[in-house]
Structure formats: structure tokens, C-alpha cells
């Protein structure tokens, strides 16, 4: 008996040590990747990175046009994707909570949520770039919007479902029309969660490279002209547009040392932007989710 018990104890300790090792293994990669990023990227970090354009090989420069391009693409994608996502989530949680359309949309949305992003890029190439005849910032932001929509749909539906029905009934009992009830009451109660969804979507798309490769492509020059703001803004979106991830991709695979250094610096910027966003989103979700 004693030996059997000892054997069980030994087996137990062995697996516990293994699980501890597995956790250390997982955390080790995080430390390693962030450490290398800091080490390689920090040395290249300077004011010039934020104020100068991407250089031709062999000369110095920064990432200004790529950073601006990323900001514009991301902002446009969120502007296009968020309303559609919120409205679709609203239908699923408020109007058709139990109908057929909702369950189909939920299933399809879950598929879109983890569909390979490169396939989204091919889709936008087929429907926008090819008919228009050229790569463009518009195509890039629509491709990113397609990635934003499922994230926002999912969180909106989840958060609206958590809003207690008593709130809705109270609103209905004073004769508030349903649309106003949703906008004034349900949205307000679920606000924190919905903001989290949008933040998560931004975090997701700001690092996306694959869908931009054949939609926004890249541009070594200023995509935005600051002299004639609005009209040229719309126009510049019709031309290829630089973005941080694509520039990192191009520079990292180049043989030039300065380009590789800029790629590391860009990687550092993008990683910390994304991680800050997702930690913020988590914080939002933890503090004010309606229970």
C-alpha cells in the first residue's frame, strides 16, 4: 500500500513540476520577445523616427508617413466598421434575440472573427482594387473594417445581453419607443463593454499586415498633403498608402542595415501601442461591466 501511495505521490509531483515548467515556458517567450524588441528597437528610437519620412536605402530617415498612414487607415476602418458592428449586434440582442437570422449571423460572425486575414485581403482586392485598377488607402481601410466588424458585433451582442430586462421593461412602461429605449437606456448601460470591443478591434487591426499587402500596398512618400487639407485628403486615399506593419515587413526583409534598424524601431512602437490598447481594454471591461 505504502509503495502504491508513494508512486501516486511521485506521479503527482512530476506533473505539477511539468505544469509549472509549461507556465514558465509560456511566460518565457513573452519576456524574450519583449526583451529583444526593447533591446533592438530602443537604440533606434529618436525624434527623427516621428518627424522624418521613410528613407531610401543608405540614408537616414524616420517612419512619419508610415505612422500617419497607419493612424489614418485604422481610424477610417473603425469609422466604417463600428456603426455596422454595433447595429448588427443591436439587432441580435434587442430585436431578434431568439430568431433564426440571429443564430445564423452569430455563427457566420464567429467564422469571420477567426478567418485568415489574408483571405480578407484577397476579397477586397477582388471587389475594390481590381475594378478600380489601382491600390488605394480606401481599399486598405475597408479591408481592416471587415476585420473590425465581427469583433464589435460580438462584444456588442454580449454586452447588450447582460443588460437586465427590468431596465427595458421600466423604459417600456413609461411609453418610450423601442428605438429610444435601446439608444438611451440599453446603450448607456452597456457602454463600457462596447468601448472595450472597439478598443480590442483597434488593437487587432493596428498590427495587421496581411490584408494591407494587396490593398493599401505601400508608399515611400507622403500620402497626405498638408497644404490643401480636405480635397487632397480624399484624393490621397485613392493612392497607395504606407502603413507601419507593411513598412516593417518590407524593411525587415531588405538587406540594408538602416532599414532593418527602422523595422525594429517600428516593431517596438507598434507592439507597445497594441499591448497598451489591449491592457486598457481589459481594464475597462473589468471595472464597469454590468453584472
Amino acid at each position: 500500500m505504502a509503495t502504491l501511495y508513494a508512486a501516486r505521490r511521485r506521479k503527482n509531483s512530476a506533473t505539477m513540476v511539468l505544469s509549472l515548467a509549461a507556465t514558465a515556458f509560456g511566460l518565457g517567450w513573452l519576456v524574450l520577445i519583449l526583451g529583444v524588441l526593447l533591446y533592438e528597437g530602443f537604440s533606434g528610437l529618436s525624434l527623427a523616427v516621428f518627424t522624418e519620412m521613410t528613407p531610401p536605402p543608405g540614408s537616414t530617415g524616420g517612419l512619419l508617413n508610415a505612422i500617419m498612414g497607419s493612424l489614418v487607415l485604422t481610424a477610417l476602418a473603425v469609422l466604417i466598421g463600428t456603426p455596422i458592428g454595433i447595429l448588427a449586434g443591436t439587432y441580435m440582442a434587442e430585436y431578434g434575440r431568439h430568431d433564426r437570422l440571429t443564430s445564423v449571423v452569430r455563427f457566420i460572425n464567429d467564422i469571420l472573427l477567426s478567418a485568415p486575414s489574408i483571405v480578407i485581403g484577397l476579397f477586397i482586392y477582388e471587389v475594390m482594387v481590381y475594378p478600380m485598377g489601382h491600390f488605394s488607402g480606401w481599399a486598405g481601410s475597408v479591408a481592416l473594417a471587415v476585420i473590425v466588424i465581427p469583433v464589435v458585433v460580438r462584444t456588442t451582442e454580449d454586452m447588450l445581453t447582460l443588460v437586465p430586462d427590468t431596465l427595458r421593461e421600466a423604459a417600456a412602461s413609461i411609453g418610450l419607443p423601442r428605438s429610444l429605449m435601446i439608444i438611451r437606456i440599453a446603450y448607456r448601460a452597456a457602454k463600457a463593454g462596447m468601448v472595450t470591443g472597439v478598443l480590442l478591434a483597434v488593437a487587432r487591426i493596428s498590427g495587421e499586415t496581411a490584408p494591407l499587402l494587396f490593398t493599401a500596398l505601400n508608399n515611400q512618400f507622403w500620402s497626405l498633403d498638408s497644404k490643401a487639407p480636405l480635397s487632397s485628403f480624399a484624393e490621397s486615399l485613392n493612392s497607395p498608402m504606407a502603413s507601419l506593419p507593411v513598412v516593417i515587413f518590407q524593411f525587415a526583409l531588405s538587406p540594408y542595415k538602416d532599414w532593418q534598424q527602422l523595422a525594429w524601431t517600428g516593431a517596438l512602437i507598434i507592439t507597445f501601442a497594441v499591448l497598451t490598447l489591449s491592457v486598457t481594454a481589459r481594464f475597462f471591461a473589468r471595472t464597469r461591466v454590468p453584472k
Partner: protein
Amino acid sequence: MQPAGRRDVVDLALQVGAVRASEAVSRSQALARLRIGDVAFRHLTRAAAVTVLLILSGVILSLIVGSLPALRQFGFGFLVSERWNPVTENFGAIAPIYGTIVTSFIAMLIAVPVGLMIAMFLTELCPQWLRRPIGTAIELLAGIPSIIYGIWGLFVFAPFLQDTLQPFLIAVFGEIPVLSSLFAGPPYGIGTLTAGLILAIMVLPFITSISRDVFDAVPPVLKEAAYGLGCTTWEVVRYVVLPYARVGVIGGVMLGLGRALGETMAVTFVIGNAHKISASVLAPGTTISATIANEFTEAVGDLYTSSLIALGLILFVITFIVLAAARYLLSRINKRIG
């Protein structure tokens, strides 16, 4: 179509300040406006929900239309041919398909046991106050953009493997009949194995967080009963937690597999982009997504472009099946919990 008695109630709503209308006429107009707005909003949300469906059908349709020229030219042979020659415009998909499956397989081989172990640590072993920070840290791995894994893999991880793991594998398995061909060839650093290892790190957080959630959902009564019988922690996990959470774990694994199959940038950096099937996992290869990412913008001619889109269609069909299965399994366990 409002019943007469409801009017007074609606008046109340107007007084609350939702809409301001003083005269009786303008009040009825306001009511009509409200009704129109109500119907319009409902249809707007419905249209948005349908948009989600349209996007997916659009993806499928555009991929099919785009790949028609290639499929017409090569027929079923496209799926089984290893040729990939842009000069003679002769294309076949088997090498990228093979690479996609092998790299994902290597990734799952490592990520599944490690992910389950971490989930076990987080639910059974870890002190309460450490659970959240460690869980969050593992999930941050999922937040790092894939291009970062790519650049890190190319400049740090691949050279490291070239100096350490790969010569070791060649030395150890070089004499054993079957395994020697699996680990044959010079240590390039980049190649199928490296891509698989990086994918393993990338899908680890997905498998960990879903397994942790389904482990957490096991009723404490069941675990306590087993502990009460004198089971060790491992025995509780092995004979109570795992059987109970099995369906959910498989769902999580499939979800991770879906990620691994479609992952693009990280793989593109380290796979080596060679359109051939090698027995050795140390040799460079290619995957569907890496081929598309590398060649699409440089593809000249309709047949070349169309072949790449056909590759995208194949990738989409594979991931669709895997993801649909994952969702089905996860919805089954959700039903049981909820």
C-alpha cells in the same frame, strides 16, 4: 396602430423630455415621427446584421470567381500537382497545402500539451492572487502582432535554432532509419520546423485561455468529491476535469488550429518559400498564406493571379471547416454549462 389607451402613456414619455411637443397637432406629428424612427431603426439594425452575412458570401463568391480561370485551366490536377512555375504558367497547389498542414501539425503537437499544462497550473495549482496576472500575461502573447513574431523569428529565433536545436536533432536522429530523413539536411535556421515552432508560440494563448475557461466551469462539487476520496491533484485533473471538459478543450484546440492554418506574416518570414515537398522538416518549404503574401503583388498575368486566389479559396475552405467544427463543439459545452 396603437390602441387608444396607450396614448396617455406615450404622453408621459413626451413629458419626460424624449421629445418636446406642445400643441396637440404637433404632438401627433411627433408620435408619427417616433413611429417612423422606430421602424427605421429596426430595419437599420436588421440590415447591418444581414451585412455580416453578405460579407461572408462576398468573400466566398469573390474567391470562387477569382479562381475560376486557374481551376478551368488545371482542373482537379491543381490540387495534386507540385509544379509552381510562373515562367511557363504551370501551377499546382500541393506543396503549399502540404506546408500548411505540416507547420500547423508541428504547432499543435507542442501547443496542445503545453497549453493544457498551463491551464491546469492556472486552475489547480496557482495561488489565487497570481492567477489573473499570469493569465493576462499569457494572453498578451496573443496580442503581439504576427509581424513581430516574424521579425523576431527571422533575426533571433532562426539563428538560435540553427546553432543549437537543429544540429542537435541532426546528430541525434542521423543514425535512426526513418527519423534520419525527417531531420536530414544542413541546418538552415529557417524552414518548416522553425515556422511550426513559432506558430506553436502564437496559438498557445488561444488554447490556454479556452482550456482554462472550460476547466473553471467544472463544478467544484465534482472535484471536491474526488479530493474527498483521496485523489491527488493530477488524478483529479486526469479523471474528473479532463473528461468533463473534453468537448470544450477539443473546441479550443480546433480554434487554435484555425489560427495556425491561416497565419501569414510570421510564417512568411521564416518558412523559406520553396515550392517543393521535402521529407525533412529542417528544409525550407512554403504555406498557402506565405505563398500568397510573397507573390501576389508581383504576380504577372491572369493565370498566375488566379492560381494564387485559388490557393486562397482552398485555405478558406479548410479553415471554414475547422472553425465551424470548433464553434459547434464549443456551443455544445456552452449549452451544458448555461
